[in-house]
């Protein structure tokens, strides 16, 4: 699978996690793709931490540079959407009013901790709104490739500085869907292009495997 196909597959699977009416924040990069796969019978409210709910598609023309997403890129607003300031935006986020946040990550571990904002000495973008999002959202989904070109990302214990402790609920990769529970990481679904052994080999943490389903990728 090439990287584009992988991302496509991950985004498609994540999109099945939403319920009608959910307030959802999608991170920059892969998580943004999720918006393209929302089922027709589900309406979600996309929140963007720079100050809006009702994020619409990227405009092709008639660009309004006053309507932007958290990456500073022009977007559009859907009917019923609204704008607010950064205090309200994070009252929504921290106060538990976001149902699902989808983020990429550099590392996730079996205790549900994650690290996605800094590689000391190399890359220091800053945490932006990520720490608030994973702390405040009701459900935290990590959407990422299973490994970094073969290097483990799903670990026993994160080695990079954390974004938050014990906040991740679900990990969706091209290999499967994993849920963090008190006793560790449960493989709920797997992509049958891979064997269970291959998936475990690509994972540092020990996966708890109990009759996993085939990964649901129906449109």
């Amino acid at each position, binding site marked *: 699978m090439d990287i584009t196909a992988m991302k496509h597959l991950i985004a498609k699977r994540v999109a099945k996690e939403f319920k009608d009416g959910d307030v959802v924040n999608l991170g920059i990069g892969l998580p943004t793709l999720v918006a393209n796969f929302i089922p027709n019978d589900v309406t979600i409210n996309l929140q963007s931490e720079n100050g809006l709910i009702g994020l619409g598609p990227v405009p092709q023309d008639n660009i309004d540079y006053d309507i932007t997403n958290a990456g500073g890129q022009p977007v559009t607003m859907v009917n019923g959407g609204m704008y607010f*300031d950064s205090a309200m935006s994070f009252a929504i986020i921290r106060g538990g009013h976001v149902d699902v946040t989808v983020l990429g990550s550099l590392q996730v571990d079996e205790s549900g901790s994650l690290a996605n904002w800094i590689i000391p000495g190399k890359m220091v973008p*800053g945490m*932006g*709104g990520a720490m608030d999002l994973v702390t405040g959202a009701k459900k935290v989904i990590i959407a990422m490739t299973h490994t970094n070109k073969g290097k483990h990302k799903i670990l026993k214990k994160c080695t990079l500085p954390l974004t938050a402790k014990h906040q991740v609920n679900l990990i969706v990769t091209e290999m499967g869907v994993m849920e963090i529970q008190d006793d560790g990481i449960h493989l709920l679904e797997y992509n049958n292009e891979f064997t269970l052994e291959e998936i475990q080999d690509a994972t540092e943490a020990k996966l708890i495997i109990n009759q996993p389903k085939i990964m649901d990728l129906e449109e």
Partner: protein
Amino acid sequence: MNKQLSIEQLKQHVFDGMSIMVGGFMAVGTPEGIVDALLEMNVKDLTLICNDAGLPEKGIGKLINNGQVKTLIASHIGLNPRAGELMGSGEMEVILVPQGTLAERIRSGGAGLGGVLTPTGLGTIVEEGKQILNIQGKDYLLELPLRADLAILYGTEVDTFGNIVYTKTTRNFNPLMATATDKVIVEARDIVEYINPDHVMTPHIFVDYIIKEAK
């Protein structure tokens, strides 16, 4: 009271070593005219408080990349690679603050509160050196209020009293910063006769000066 100021008169209100809060999110909602004037005046050793480091050619990125910033307090610097370099080399101090915490610290600085009690940052390096309070069985970090000498804001519509409306996503940190500094200067896209009193986002009592944006 006439609050209108020319961009030349801005000089009277800035000095080396001052602290400035700058509205905007990835430079959306940043007063570019005032930033350009600060660039031209070459005021130095600034402490800037802003959501991010701007872009190399936009927002406070211009001031950072011109070496005018001693300390940056922000949540994100990823869109301006030079900011990361200056941080790495130690030429600029960067204090990274989670975005929601940054918003709330500024708000509390303006609202006379003693600080912010937030769960954000617990169990991370953000908590280092900070007090943790257990309240009703849950832990919270105590984050301190932020204030500055000056706020520079970008308003879409400003009336002659100084009431401000920020349109769409240009709003972001602007109305919070308006409350938390000794002096507030707004760059106005348009100076208007009338704003519906229900729609005012920053009451005029916070605004000291209005500079009309050059078009």
